């Protein structure tokens, strides 16, 4: 049942895009917005519904950096590593956050699926370098300390809502 319900959503998305293979990228974007990642079985399902090979769908899904085949954390932290941020030492932010979130050996998502740490080529917020974005919220003119604080605030907020799920 669970699986069937999963495909129902995908089918809706495919229908909305006229089942057209030319709309593959918008379809994948919508599916990822729904599930936060692109599960393998869904990619195969999309290929069959659009009448194209699974290889083509995988090819597209792996080509573009915004698509991910692995589940991401609830908070996606993207440190900008555009030129302006880079010369203002954005990689120091990354190092500190990586240590803080205990991400070792190339892992980018915390084991509790709360955070994913990524770098992004340019957010276009160069005037605020160094910058990072947490989900859709841009934070600018950061220092390693300030970046750490932002993470702490989220952890605190999450811990509160967990112990007090109704926000009373």
């Amino acid at each position, binding site marked *: 049942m669970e699986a069937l319900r999963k495909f129902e959503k995908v089918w809706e998305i495919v229908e909305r895009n006229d089942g*057209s*293979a*030319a*709309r*593959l*990228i*918008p379809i*994948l*974007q919508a599916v990822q917005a729904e599930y936060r990642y692109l599960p393998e079985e869904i990619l195969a399902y999309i290929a069959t519904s659009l009448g194209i090979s699974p290889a*083509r769908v995988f*090819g*597209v899904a792996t*080509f*573009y*950096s*915004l*698509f991910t085949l692995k589940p991401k954390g609830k908070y996606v932290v993207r440190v900008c*590593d*555009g*030129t*302006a941020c*880079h*010369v*203002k*030492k954005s990689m*120091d932010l990354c*190092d*500190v956050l990586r*240590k*803080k979130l205990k991400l070792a050996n190339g892992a980018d998502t915390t084991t509790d699926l709360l955070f994913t740490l990524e770098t*992004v*080529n*340019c*957010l*276009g*917020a*160069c*005037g*605020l*370098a160094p*910058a990072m974005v947490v989900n*859709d*919220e*841009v*934070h*600018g*003119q950061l220092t*390693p*300390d300030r970046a*750490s604080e932002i993470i702490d605030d989220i952890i605190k907020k999450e811990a509160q809502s967990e112990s007090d799920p109704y926000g009373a």
Partner: protein
Amino acid sequence: MNLTRMELNRIRENFNARQNAASHRVIVCAGTGCRANGSLKVYEEFVRCLAHSGLDVVVELKDEDHDIFVSKSGCQGFCQLGPLVTILPEGTFYTKVKANDVEDIVETTIKRGELVHRLLYVEHGTNKACKAKDEILFYRKQHRFVLNNCGIIDPEDIREYIACGGYQASVKACFDMTPEGVCRLIEAAGLRGRGGGGFPTGNKWNLARQQASKKKYVICNGDEGDPGAFMDRCIMEGNPHSVIEGMIIAARAIDADEGYVYVRAEYPLAVKHIRKAIEDAYALGILGKRLLGSQYCFDLHVMEGAGAFVCGEETALIASMEGKRGMPSPKPPFPVRSGLWGKPTVINNVETLAAVPLIIASGPDSFRQTGTEFSPGTKTFAITGHVVNTGLIEMPFGTTLREIVYGVAGGVATADGEPASDGFKAVQIGGPSGGCLTKEHLDLPMDFDSLKGVGAMIGSGGLVVMNNNTCMVDVARFFMQFAESESCGKCVLCREGTKQMSLLLDDIVEGKATEETLDILEDLATAVQKGSLCGLGKTAPNPVLSTLRQFRDEYEAHVKFKYCPTGTCKALKKLRIDGDLCRGCMVCAKKCPVGAITGEKGKVHRIDEKLCIKCEVCVESCKFQAITGGRK
């Protein structure tokens, strides 16, 4: 005069009358930068506070008169000082406004007509407090043409664009001009593509116009991927209708009936504003069938990118729009012959399209009055990095680099933004495809052709200023890693070449390279430049070649002496605590984000090299300058 022109005029007069009837207008910048600094809270606080003090306040001008109009604008380009607030009609300009400043502004400026001095911008050097934008060097030295309305008008209100004369140029193109006439006019103006190529726009349109095909497309390339450039984001966020109008005119010029705006998904606000603008234009009959009451049809869609730099290349962009991997294909055939779905397609950059309505409205001669003979008009530059004033600016082509760095941007700065008058080292221009300009290029006129002459390119206009403490090898490595990760993998030289160059540069910054490494790097760079298929690969070696040429001594210091002159390269860096200077105050141990510093109170502390991430927080926090080996 036809009906639509009359309707446009009616909207225009109505809006302007309402605006004139208001005693004040408060404009809060709501571009990406100011939003990050909390400008939406400032906006809400203005609405709340004005209403609370019993004033007649409105956030959208409709059919009635109101006393005070509060609106949001797109990016004003001066992001580092945000949130920015402008109060009209006086033009009072406040910087770094927080929500708790709003009450003071309402009481002092709006009610009593006086200034809140602490929020005024103070010019570095002269210490002059500036009351309005036009007193600030950063704005006064600019020539805002395409950006003129950005940061003033409300980008989400189509009526305000119309009130500023918007959509008059498309009426002119649809009713008073032939497609050939439109192409000729743009050709006469000498408009060249602002995306980096510099190809004459009028020529491109004319080629597409001459194709015998019933179906043609116009695409706006808003896949602004160059790190360090954000002009297209500002235009799409701050004045989306100017782009749409440019596309309507392009469609008329080549007789296309369908168009796409391809926007980077990393720009959510630009996507939102473009979508809203298209909806509003449809609602007023400016897009769609029989647009503006003419016999023409133009349908416009938005396509969001999915994060691939190479899609800024036009053939890759088309592949991506067709639902494929964004890989470039060899040219010819050029898209003007065979583009989207094999149909003739014109692809123009955002800034180019936004300039088109202005040129149609004011004529080619007026456009040619600024800029140089072969690069007429103005160019937007994103000036960032180590300068006092970072932001988005617009200057006539031919302006010198010196004027931009020292005149507009207020000169070179330290990493903390403090002025450092003699600190200039280089300017990286044109992103990953460009090169470095040094002191000797400061008086070079910035236009398409002069820059090509010195092995750089204007690209999309990203200028990253670097001070003396920037390691040029690290900069070259940064761009090479970028090119490596963005190479689409289609051709071997680009795919493997960028990877190998990246590894060679890794060796250099990690102290594993020899002098021979530099020769191999140079050979490889030349080969990749010659043998790659598309612009990405052909230009990827530019940052390496240009830094090798201009800063060879710095490369040599890394390979011969395993020494990074600026202390940037971490593998060559060792942080140590000087036992004679350390007082054991424990500040550094507390500040260290990874707990690498240990020691008892009053005793000399020690850094554990294995744990240290070399972030230098300790260096900054030490009051006794006891920690050595940090960056200069």
